[in-house]
């Protein structure tokens, strides 16, 4: 039987505010345990929450960016359950009326563009961490993370394959970074994903029973976890079993999912409106000011790069995946005579591989946009060849100065003087009688050998186009001469 996979995703995005969602404590990652947990975060008796306006602003920006409806009046509710890293015994979240409702995002699939619905996005606080190791059978509690603002973004069950799920997640990840509402750091838990997965016979309208895969923290694991889960469910049904609604945990070491809890032992969270926080009232002005902070979004930027600059889809996609990369690209472009395509190539291949090698962000690149622009200009005005330019780039990366400086110091200027080139070429031809014979015998590919020899003799500085022209002329003359 052909099966169809149905996937919906819940993504918890940590908002990159300075302070926590309901207290003034810092949200900085990596501090010593419990050093960033104030009286409110550890839920001392008598403390009260106060909403962080910056978190609200970031949630609104997200809502506007996915063309969602912003609820001007949204309500905070308490989700009640006991756990040692949940200090109040309840999590403040949004239940009935979330701040963001009903948006969408477009993803690229093998069959073209696809619209993925966003059901809602709501504000809530993160819990602390329970540390089960290093405490001799006891559990350590670190409340630094408690109260960190989260935006939980819930998608419609619109994805039909792990690849679509990944495409959606990458889009979302790019978007939150563009909006500067999250650092999106998956290792540090700033971008966490739960996947609701079910299968149904192709053509069936009603959804199959789903399982929820919890807290998977890399794109690769998400893909593997969903793949495993889909196969598990199909095998189960084909063997005559039924899928039960449950929460499952993905184990990356064993590449399998395991049941965590079933629907029967699901909590009754006893949601009710938090009496400590009045409903949040957003005026139109606040929403408009958030709208003004939204930069050109990746999708629009990508289309612009393709339409205005004639870049292909892959280049445009790669350049716009990170805002910093796109900014770098546009900065180089504005400072060079070179073509957009050439700038794109330099960033997407040479620069990208250097950054990758040293695990650096583009913001930390030792080769600034201005430096790269100068280098591309030198290719454009034929001061150096593309090949030499790669050597110059390596020197710039190593901190040896700007392109002009390096070209000058190392004498890398291209040889464009015809008489000088002719002299070198004559020398090469004189000592290459065997190859000339081959050439005369009709083996055209030996031409490359002569070019190589000339380049070698000039340390690559000969203008390749001129070398080609002069060589061709001389060889043809020799050939004709013999024929006579």
């Amino acid at each position, binding site marked *: 039987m052909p099966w169809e996979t149905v996937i919906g995703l819940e993504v918890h995005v940590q908002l990159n505010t300075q302070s926590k969602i309901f207290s003034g404590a810092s949200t900085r990652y990596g501090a010593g345990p419990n050093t960033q947990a104030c009286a409110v975060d550890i839920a001392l008796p*008598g403390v009260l929450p*106060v909403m962080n306006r910056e978190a609200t602003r970031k949630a609104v920006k997200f809502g506007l960016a996915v063309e969602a409806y912003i609820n001007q009046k949204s309500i905070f509710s308490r989700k009640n359950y*006991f756990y*040692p890293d949940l200090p109040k015994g*309840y999590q403040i979240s949004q239940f009935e009326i979330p701040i963001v409702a009903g948006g969408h995002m477009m993803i690229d699939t093998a069959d073209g563009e696809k619209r993925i619905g966003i059901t809602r996005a709501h504000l809530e606080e993160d819990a602390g961490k329970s540390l089960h190791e290093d405490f001799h059978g006891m559990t350590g*509690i670190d409340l630094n993370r408690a109260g960190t603002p989260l935006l939980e973004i819930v998608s419609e069950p619109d994805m039909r394959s792990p690849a679509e799920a990944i495409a959606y997640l990458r889009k979302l990840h790019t978007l939150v970074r563009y909006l500067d509402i999250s650092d999106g750091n998956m290792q540090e838990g700033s971008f966490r994903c739960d996947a609701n997965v079910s299968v149904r016979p192709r053509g069936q309208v009603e959804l199959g029973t789903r399982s929820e895969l919890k807290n998977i923290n890399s794109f690769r694991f998400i893909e593997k976890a969903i793949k495993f889960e889909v196969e598990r469910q199909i095998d189960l049904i084909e063997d005559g079993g039924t899928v039960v609604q449950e929460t499952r945990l993905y184990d990356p070491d064993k590449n399998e999912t395991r049941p965590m809890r079933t629907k029967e032992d699901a909590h009754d969270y*006893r949601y*009710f409106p938090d009496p400590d926080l009045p409903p949040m009232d957003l005026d139109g002005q606040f929403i408009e000011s958030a709208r003004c902070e939204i930069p050109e979004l990746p999708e629009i930027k990508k289309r612009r790069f393709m339409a205005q600059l004639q870049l292909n889809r892959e280049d445009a996609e790669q350049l716009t995946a990170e805002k910093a990369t796109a900014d770098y690209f546009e900065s180089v472009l504005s400072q060079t005579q070179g073509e957009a395509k050439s700038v794109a190539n330099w960033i997407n291949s040479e620069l990208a591989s250097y950054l990758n090698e040293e695990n650096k962000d583009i913001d930390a690149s030792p080769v600034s946009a201005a430096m790269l622009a100068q280098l591309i200009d030198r290719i454009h005005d034929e001061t150096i060849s593309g090949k030499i330019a790669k050597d110059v780039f390596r020197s710039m990366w190593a901190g040896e100065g700007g392109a002009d400086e390096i070209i000058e110091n190392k004498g890398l200027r291209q040889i464009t003087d015809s008489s000088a080139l002719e002299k070198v070429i004559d020398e090469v031809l004189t000592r290459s009688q065997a190859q000339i014979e081959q050439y005369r015998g009709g083996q055209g590919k030996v031409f490359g050998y002569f070019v190589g020899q000339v380049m070698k003799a000039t340390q690559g500085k000969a203008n390749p186009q001129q070398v080609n022209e002069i060589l061709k002329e001389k060889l043809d003359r020799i050939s004709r001469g013999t024929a006579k």
Partner: protein
Amino acid sequence: MYAETLKQLASDLRGKRCSSVELTTCYLDRMERCGTLNAFITIDADFSLDQARAADRLLENGDSRPLTGIPIAHKDIFCTQGMLTTCGSKILHNFTPPYDATLIGRCKEQGMVSLGKTNMDEFAMGSSNETSYFGPVKNPWDKNKVPGGSSGGSAATVAARLAAAATGTDTGGSVRQPAALCGITGLKPTYGRVSRYGMIAFASSLDQGGVLTQSAEDAALLLNVIAGFDPKDSTSVDEPVPDYTGDLSKDLTGLRIGLPKQYFDEGLASSVEQSTREALSVLEKLGARLIDIDLPNSELCVPCYYVIAPSEASSNLSRFDGVRYGYRSELYDDLVDMYMRTRSEGFGDEVKRRIMIGTYALSAGYYDAYYLKAQKLRRLITQDFELAFEQCDVIMGPTTPTPAFELGAKISDPISMYLNDIYTISANLSGLPGVSIPAGFVDGLPTGLQIIGPYFSESCLLNVGHRFQMETDWHKRIPGGFE
């Protein structure tokens, strides 16, 4: 000296007729001699005297403010930095907060002296002070009687003149009811007028800090100190704070007093009704008019309250889990066992009863029938008042249906205990301010006259109370054995 009002003491301090240290010593001595009332949970004489010395320096330097140097007792529900704060519970018997409640901070800024922390019903859940882990408080007028609750320790303290004034909190009548039963003045301001930050939450949408004093004038002086917006409390209201002493002496001619017929029905002891009517006639003589009004949903107040308050409490008290502070059971098998034992052993019966009621009312499948329904009733009850205030300026009636009852009489009968708050709960559900002032005596026990006004009408309520107290001396009476 101990029998003087805040107003008189402030004048004495300013006129150098006494020092804050002398005053503080005087009250500390009385507190020690009157320990049998069990009005205090924590007393730290050294701490109090340090504060008094600091206050004397301020008075000396002329840096003083109106209540600098005045000793005051605080209900043990307010967090006090470096001083035990138990909320009357075993589960917090060892809890010392690292911070001051906003109300406490404001008193400190004023240079007031803290005499200690007063006894109270556990987590403010009770109307008799008998649910305290630290034992019941006794009524100074009759030590076999309850002082009322939950601010029973504060009420008994002021009645017995162990302090010039005390703070309290009122969730369903917890300031006004004990004030009535102890023969003093108790004010619950409008919800949002006094910051709840650092006040250990019972029912967040109902809780409000208040004052227990000898007179309406003293209540005005103390409200001047504690009222005002607090950015740390999202439910506090950013309204300007008037000088509450400004209108105290205003003429009452033409004041329209609404008398809800529901406050004078069969549940009211006839002796209390009589004392209330006599008090009203005093106000009539001052030019006020009595108008019969209707609060048709009054009978729904108690059931509505006993859904909303326990629901909020069940969630508010979840933080007492033995993980981070307070009591933790000594022996347990695992995490769930630790929670169960800690909370079973740490909370008293009444608290557990309300946690269970609240948990039930919020559960899936019951939420609509209980919590949501109660919220709708709350809206109706509030509307009753809004309509009533189109006909009258203030609403009056007895604060409680009976005078103080015997210790032990109602502790095993929760419903009859809950009915003691039948006239006070509505002001919490609607968020309105209310004050109870001494209205007379029945069989040697004080009664209270309750005055409820529109939102932020504290000045008006205190004006009425003050004019009444200029004509009467009930508020000046001191229980036998405490003169």
